């Protein structure tokens, strides 16, 4: 043991103190724990997995990744804010523990076994971060490096997945007799694909099967992959690269993280690494290495994090804003942006026809599409993971607000011709998509509050009533509820412009009406 193995020092627990009421336990072994690392004298106390995850985060921040940017900001009181430069953009000094997305998002991807794309210029630590995640899963650095797939224009499906054994190709009488030498990376729990946008389109399709369905297929032979965390890197997330990335593959990516520029103020740390010949990924302390069982357990614990109704309702309201395109359909259900997209009609024509609403105020006008089910599920999983990482047992609105831009980064496409982006003070949002998405969510929450939907949401009241079940509901009561729904539909549609959230409310009411109608028919048949 070296007294100065600063690269191996793990932050002392609790890394985020005072977040949950748990029974206090004191371990006498703590007496012998301190700044001097002792290998055998003190018995190890198993830290909870969320604490271990935080220790991994802080080890990476303090030792492995130089110059972290604290862009995931939390506050627990007034935070000093300064207007900087000609644009008067604000620099906020967070008053609570805040995080660097470049480290936190890959870590949450690791904990939830999702798929993360690193984007950014060359030499910014994208691949190094991905390798660190492999190391956290208990693999040796060499093993992770060897298993990493490097995208290149000549990459074949065999390069990616494996080869049939040459002898079997000659001697086999049937396909079943051909054995496949599968690539070792397929069985790993952390999979890294470097520069995935340099992979030829056909090979991308094979990659899609592995990413999307978790199996590989060569000559009718199937290799079932274990559930894994995926890390992909690209120098350009907009589909650039040697080959256009197929849309389905892009859609499988759960979060996108941008590798920000190195701050030369941290050059001394870089110098230290050169002088010490230290590679942090080779020095990861064993306290932050996760076994397969621990990752499974962590996944279960993350899923158990609750999403309170007030948080869920705001997410519902936010997502409601975007799918409606009133002029795209004639039948109510088809008045969506997806209908317009599938028809192949020029987007500008669709927008030009939409002249009834306040296009600056309507958040739906800022996007060219809506939020998919896959995106929503990813968003909920990552919001839970962030709450878990922070040591909470329920998702807070701020968790959702912070994680949302990274999940929807590549999914919610801005309409840069929309009036919102033409306002001079909003010009920055044309290029800074993360800030735009966060602003969009803030505006949606403001509107939610203005409508007082926390306290006055008749659609939710009806839905809750329905959720209690139809068992024992009389015909008279059913008719009363149908009348209530019809009255509400009539009220909502009276003299008001159609906005996204209203459109979804009306659809929900139609759904409830239909369920009660069916029940009424059934009742009368008894």
């Amino acid at each position: 043991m070296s007294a100065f193995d600063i690269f191996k020092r793990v932050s002392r627990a609790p890394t985020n103190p005072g977040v949950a009421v748990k029974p206090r336990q004191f371990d006498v072994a703590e007496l012998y724990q301190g700044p001097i690392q002792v290998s055998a004298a003190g018995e190890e106390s198993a830290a909870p997995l969320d604490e271990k995850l935080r220790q991994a985060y802080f080890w990476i921040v303090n030792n492995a990744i130089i110059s972290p940017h604290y862009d995931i900001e939390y506050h627990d009181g007034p935070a000093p804010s300064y207007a900087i430069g000609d644009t008067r953009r604000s620099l906020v000094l967070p008053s609570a523990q805040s995080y660097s997305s470049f480290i936190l998002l890959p870590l949450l991807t690791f904990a939830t076994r999702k798929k993360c794309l690193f984007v950014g210029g060359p030499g910014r630590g994208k691949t190094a971060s991905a390798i660190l995640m492999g190391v956290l899963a208990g693999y040796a650095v060499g093993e992770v490096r060897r298993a990493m797939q490097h995208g290149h224009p000549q990459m074949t499906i065999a390069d990616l997945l494996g080869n049939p054994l040459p002898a079997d190709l000659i001697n086999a009488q049937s396909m079943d007799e051909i054995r496949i030498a599968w690539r070792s990376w397929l069985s790993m729990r952390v999979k890294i694909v470097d520069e995935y946008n340099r992979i030829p389109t056909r090979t991308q399709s094979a990659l899609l099967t592995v990413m999307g369905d978790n199996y590989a297929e060569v000559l009718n032979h199937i290799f079932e992959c274990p559930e894994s965390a995926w890390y992909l890197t690209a120098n350009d997330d907009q589909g650039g690269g040697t080959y256009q990335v197929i849309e389905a593959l892009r859609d499988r990516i759960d979060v996108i993280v941008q590798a920000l520029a190195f701050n030369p103020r941290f050059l001394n740390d870089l110098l230290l690494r050169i002088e010490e010949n230290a590679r942090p990924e080779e020095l990861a302390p064993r306290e932050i290495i996760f076994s397969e069982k621990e990752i499974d357990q962590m996944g279960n614990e993350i899923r158990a994090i609750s999403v309170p109704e007030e948080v869920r309702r705001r997410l519902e309201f936010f997502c409601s804003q975007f799918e409606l395109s009133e002029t795209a359909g004639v039948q109510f259900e088809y008045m969506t942006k997806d209908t317009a997209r599938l028809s192949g009609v020029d987007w500008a024509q669709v927008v030009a026809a939409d002249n009834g609403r306040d296009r600056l105020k309507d958040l739906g006008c800022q996007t060219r599409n809506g939020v998919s089910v896959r995106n929503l599920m990813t968003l909920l999983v990552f919001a839970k993971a962030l709450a878990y990482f922070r040591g909470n047992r329920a998702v807070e609105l701020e968790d959702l607000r912070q994680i949302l831009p990274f999940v929807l980064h590549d999914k919610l496409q801005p309409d840069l011709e929309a009036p919102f982006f033409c306002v001079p003070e909003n010009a920055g949002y044309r290029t800074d998509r993360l800030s735009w998405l966060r602003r969009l969510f803030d505006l949606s929450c403001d509107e939610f509050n203005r409508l007082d939907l926390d306290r006055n949401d008749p659609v939710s009241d009806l839905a809750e009533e329905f959720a209690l079940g139809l068992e024992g509901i009389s015909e008279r009561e059913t008719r009363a509820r149908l009348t209530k729904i019809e009255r509400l539909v009539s009220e909502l549609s009276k003299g008001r412009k159609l906005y996204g959230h209203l459109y979804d409310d009306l659809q929900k009411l139609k759904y409830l009406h239909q369920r009660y109608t069916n029940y009424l028919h059934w009742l009368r048949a008894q």
Partner: protein
Amino acid sequence: MSVSTPFARILAAGRTQFNARVAEAKRRSPSFDSDAFGAFLISAVDPVIAAVDAISPDRAASVALSAYDIALMLAAQGMIGPKARYPLVGRAWGTLFPALAQQISEEPAEVLGALSNAALYLGSTPNLRGEEWLQHMCELAPTTTVPELLALGKVLAWRSGVAHFRSGALNAASTLPENLVVAAVGATPGNSWASIRARFDDDPWWSPNAEVASERCIGDFSGFGGSFSQPPEVRASVSGFWVKSGDRYSLLIADVWGAVLHPASAEEFASPAPIIKFPVPVQKGNRLIFGHRAVDIDLPAEGLSVVCNETTAAVSSIYSHQIRLYPLQ
């Protein structure tokens, strides 16, 4: 002043390596005090090496390497030297470690590291009696094996006021030889550990030594070096008491040998109090009546608050920054 011959020989043999370690420490820790480190090598590390060399010369180099690295770490963190934040560490090296040559020669990194950490813990936590721990260790530790030494350190730490380690320390005590454990808890030789342990398990305010005070006082005004900025509010908890003073919350754990405050949260302070099965003391003015005994509190009756958990009554007042603790039995 120079070092002993064995240590000088070891330093000379590894001069390049040792010098490189110091250069590395200086680079990584700009506040590294080379003079304090040098003085510590002479005053604290050298006696340990000399003692080890006297009983096991072939282990001296290995011990020197471990001791040197630990001394570097301590110097880099400002734990040794004239400006040391916690002098107990230096005192442990100077007085205790030379007496533990046998154990150190067997497991140098573990013994030196663990006991240095323990000295840091006892020296840095308020309300603990680190010097008492050191004194008892010097008396009882030299003849132990390494596992006994580490178990003994835990027991004596508890006896020196680390009330929150009571349960673990009792378990560690049960692994010690009978005569050693009886001495470690301050009981009269000849008593059986089994009967002593039963008493400890039964009552946290029982002590084999009748002279130990059966009541404690903790807190004081933070402006005078105490723990509380405002007179504390107290709530009972299963393991002790939740305490609120201003916007700071603490968990107070106490027994016959000490009382320690740990950081806590507002949520913990607000958690429901446990149900008490035992009779609580009756308050008459500023007098508390516990069954057959009475205690006079030297505070006005007005604003006096008495809170009880399973074993202890905590008395606080709007006129005092202290919390007084009394055994219920």
